[in-house]
């Protein structure tokens, strides 16, 4: 029997197939769903990534979203919470699958340089309720390597493809446990306590990269040198300038 401390999860909604766990969890959050509301689906037919990108999410993978309602005061650092969730996923994958994964800033989970999973998050405030964060996690767990569509076959990887099939529910439980633990630290002390571990688990630091859509910087190339205390990626550009970015798509070059 597996005993996990997931007492913060209060309301579990399981589906065989959904358009998107994130969209449903968001809708529930908007309608006042309590913290710990969880939506999990065996498959998604409209799974989404950043800015409307689609996310391949067949049966066999792990696709879920949950609602958090952080107390006031962490609004300024709430985006860094994404990195904390990434860290929770990495810890759980290590424990359950015995595999070391890394965070590609800001929200991809990589294994051997290929995409094992990703995290999205939407934040907001209901008209009466406190701020909420809806986090969505997708992991290519028991997806056969040859099931990936051709356009992502070279860049995606699954635990099954690595010979490490897992029990999805067990991995999800472990991720939720790690997330709950991280969340308690984060809401009490902010991002700083986990920053060192995030840096250590960051695939991007030290790499030569190109960032598309980096706000005012547009497209920039340079070397990733650090993660800031706010969770931003610190980049030394080819022109020698040190800048901090908070959004964009990162490509290794």
């Amino acid at each position, binding site marked *: 029997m597996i005993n996990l401390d997931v007492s913060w999860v209060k309301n579990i909604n399981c589906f065989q197939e959904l358009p998107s766990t994130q969209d449903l969890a968001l809708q529930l959050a908007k309608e006042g769903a309590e913290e710990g509301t969880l939506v999990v689906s065996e498959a998604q037919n409209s799974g989404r990534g950043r800015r409307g990108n689609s996310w391949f999410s067949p049966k066999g993978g792990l696709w879920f979203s949950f609602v958090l309602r952080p107390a006031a005061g962490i609004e300024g650092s709430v985006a860094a919470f994404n990195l904390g969730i990434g860290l929770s996923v990495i810890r759980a994958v290590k424990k359950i699958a015995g595999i070391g994964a890394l965070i590609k800033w800001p929200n991809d989970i990589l294994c051997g340089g290929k995409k094992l999973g990703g995290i999205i998050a939407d934040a907001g405030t209901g008209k009466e309720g406190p701020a909420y964060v809806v986090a969505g996690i997708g992991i290519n767990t028991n997806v056969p390597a040859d099931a990936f569509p051709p356009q992502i076959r070279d860049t995606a990887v699954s635990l099954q493809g690595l010979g490490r099939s897992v029990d999805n529910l067990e991995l999800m439980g472990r991720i939720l446990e790690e997330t709950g633990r991280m969340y308690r630290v984060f809401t009490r002390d902010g991002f700083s306590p986990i920053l060192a571990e995030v840096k250590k688990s960051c695939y991007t630091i030290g790499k030569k990269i190109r960032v598309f859509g980096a706000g005012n910087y547009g497209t920039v190339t340079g070397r990733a040198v650090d993660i800031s205390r706010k969770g931003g990626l610190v980049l030394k550009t080819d022109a020698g300038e040190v800048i901090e970015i*908070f959004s964009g798509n990162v490509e290794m070059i």
Partner: protein
Amino acid sequence: MNLKEVKEIINLLQNSDIDELEIEREGVRIRVKKTPGVQHVPITSTNLPSQIFQQPVPVTSVPVAPQNGGQAGQAQGAVPAEKGVIQIVSPMVGTFYRAPSSEAEPYVEVGTEVTKGQPLCIIEAMKMMNEIESEVSGKIVRILVENGQTVEFGQPLFQVETQ
């Protein structure tokens, strides 16, 4: 409730003719549904997929001082505003997007009549999408930031004429 029990519930449902099962124990509610694609939450016309992720975040709206609105505005990189014009400012550092996705139409244009609570834009920070809603009802008179630009905490984004 532990994971083994959750698994047993799911297995029970999968091997039965039951379509939906809800169990509540020790304050934890589990709902398992078998029919693919059917949600237990009614989707109304106001919650169409393109709009589902429109979520508001708290926005500080700063009344622009009528007398020296120009100066106050310029200090924050905004254009001068007149009496009765409310400035919507960014609650965070991030990238400003005028539409919910790259293919979608902008939420608002100059001249759009908005109501309080209506989404105006998205600010993305580390792939967390924060939807910014209007604090007031009125007409958009200026959009102060270009799509895709970085905005700072407190930076004015829109001016809304309330009279």
